[in-house]
């Protein structure tokens, strides 16, 4: 996984609650077997004029002052809905490295932290303050620093955040979660051996084998 330590750059305000992963990356961009190239689908149905690839100038992502944005600030329950990890890949491919919100959809949150996209939670009051500052003028910069657990708002205000220690460490180091689990292979093997005796029916996969 890509490590995340700190990002500083232009922040996009998305003052909406419950932005779901269908909105983040609509279904027509999911028809792929790749992780790459999904940035063009980020907010696809909001970003382009009806069914075309012509940018809708009214949508915030298309504001010329917000090009090269690195951070996105949104309302509560960001990334709710579908488990599609494409939603996370789309942010990263677009260039967004951190998303800040009062709360996240549970699966999006986990997916983000497994891909090096910093999903940072701040109090709703802090988010309201930041969104208000970002509203004008567009193109202001913020910083998310995972080394110090601090977000710096566009006006220089510092906000502290917390993140589960193991997730924070994995992000900082860009740790490979699977490699870490494979170090516990002996424990997994022992569990499976014992489980075959304890719950033999779990290991009898024949039930559905005959069409």
């Amino acid at each position, binding site marked *: 996984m890509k490590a995340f330590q700190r990002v500083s750059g232009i922040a996009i305000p998305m003052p*909406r*609650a*419950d932005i*779901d992963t*269908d*909105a983040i990356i*609509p*279904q*027509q961009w999911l*028809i*792929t*077997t790749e*992780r790459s190239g999904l940035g063009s689908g980020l907010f696809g*149905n909001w970003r382009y004029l*009806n*069914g075309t690839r012509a940018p809708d100038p009214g949508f915030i992502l298309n504001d010329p002052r917000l090009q090269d944005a690195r951070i996105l600030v949104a*309302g*509560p*329950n960001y990334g*709710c*809905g*579908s*488990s*599609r*990890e494409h939603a*996370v890949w789309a942010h990263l491919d677009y260039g967004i490295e951190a998303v800040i919100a009062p*709360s996240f*959809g*549970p*699966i999006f*949150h*986990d*997916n983000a932290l*497994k*891909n090096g996209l910093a999903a940072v939670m701040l109090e709703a009051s802090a988010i309201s303050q930041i969104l208000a500052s970002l509203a004008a003028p567009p193109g202001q910069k913020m910083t998310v620093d995972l080394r110090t657990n601090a977000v710096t708002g566009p006006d220089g205000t510092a906000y502290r955040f917390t993140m*589960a*220690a*193991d997730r924070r460490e994995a992000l900082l180091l860009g740790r490979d*979660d*699977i490699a*870490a*689990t*494979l170090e*516990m*292979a002996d*424990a*997994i093997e022992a*569990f*499976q051996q014992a*489980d075959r005796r304890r*719950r*033999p*029916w*779990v290991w*009898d*996969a024949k*039930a*559905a*084998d005959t*069409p």
Partner: protein
Amino acid sequence: MSPYASPPAATSLFDKLWNTHLIKVLPGERGLIHIDRHLLHDLSSPQAFAGLRASGRPVRSASLAVAVPDHIVDTHPGRGDGTVPGGQAMITALRENARSTGIRLFDIGDPRQGIVHVIAAEQGIVLPGMTAACGDSHTCTLGALGSWAFGIGTSEVEHILATQTLVLKKPRSFRLTVTGQRRPGVTAKDLALGMIAQIGVDAVGGGVLEFAGPAIRELSMEARFTLCNMGIEASARSAIIAPDETTFRYIAQHPLSPAWSGMALAAWRKLKSDPDAAFAGEFHFDCDGLAPQISWGTNPGQTIGVDAPIPEPAPDAPLRTREAAERALHYMGLAPGQKLLGLPVQTVFIGSCTNGRLSDLQSAASILKGRRVAPHMRALAVPGSTKVKRDAEALGLDRIFRAAGFEWRESGCSMCVGMNADRVEAGARCVSTSNRNFEGRQGQGARTHLASPLTAAAAAIAGCIADPRALAPL
């Protein structure tokens, strides 16, 4: 035992499931959890297999996995691999990945094919007390069996393929107790929608939601799947119902080996919350007086009784609620105070992992029998699995749907996720038995109203949103 020893702490159903699958306690309230069943489909797995190949890691426990194409598949009769451009590669990838790793595949044309959450239950793949994970948020459906079932992302799919485990922080456990008596015409879907409208779309915050109470006990197994399926729409990553005789009768269609069936049943009977188990939060929902529900907005919590007017946002409602309502009404082309009854509808979709089972089709057919859909209505019936389709055809339901003017399709996710060619046109209004009314979910600009199969069938006949209680079977 000493009479002074402290009694064992009371545990919830979820605590028991967690403890059974805990391989190792990890720092930070985390655990290494064994995954008993890994369900794979065409949308969320190709990148996981690619990652596994890139790192040279083998699949650890292929016999505990099942793969099925459902999201991208064509649903027209006589289908092959052909679907929307780019889609065939997803089907081919699933097939190749299953073949090369020795994972069971229920391919297109196999009588066991269907929507992953439907077939995992009906084929006896997921049983009470198991952990089941799938790269799909509606995996919570399978918690109706008393299993701990939840949706994951593609990175976690890869993690399970390589290790048959996940590292998880123990989720918080909530309970929703349902009381009261549903009236005729009020289904499990109405219960689910009404519940979400009451507690809110982020009520459970990614935790586990146990459904309990007398009104849950009397639900059929298929109704329980519908209810648990909608758990994620209240942000419950898992929904669970303690297994009982209804559950055991359902799973008896795939008898276990007599060598351990007694042992399994004894273990399953212990799967319930202790009377004094503690929960992170408790909710209560009363079915008395509940009308058939229908969504008016763009999240499943924006739901009302079919005969009610769209609510005016209360002046003291949080800004979030008011803004969300305004945006939703704009997208849906509706206004506060407006009644949904009589609103013209162009499309009706009956299917999905929420309402694509036999009893759902029977329920819709009870209204459709002897009637015709309104002129210009596009009406789609997409069975949740190939088995559901065949069982329905054996009962003659396909003839009822066709005679009424419905298209009768092969099974798949279809118009619920809009990934194949089955989409709702921009601006068209669709009454759908699926689970999400998000903007653009059924197609860009599509206006989705979530409802039960009865309400969807009534809309197809009337050509507008209609109260199913007004349409008695002919």
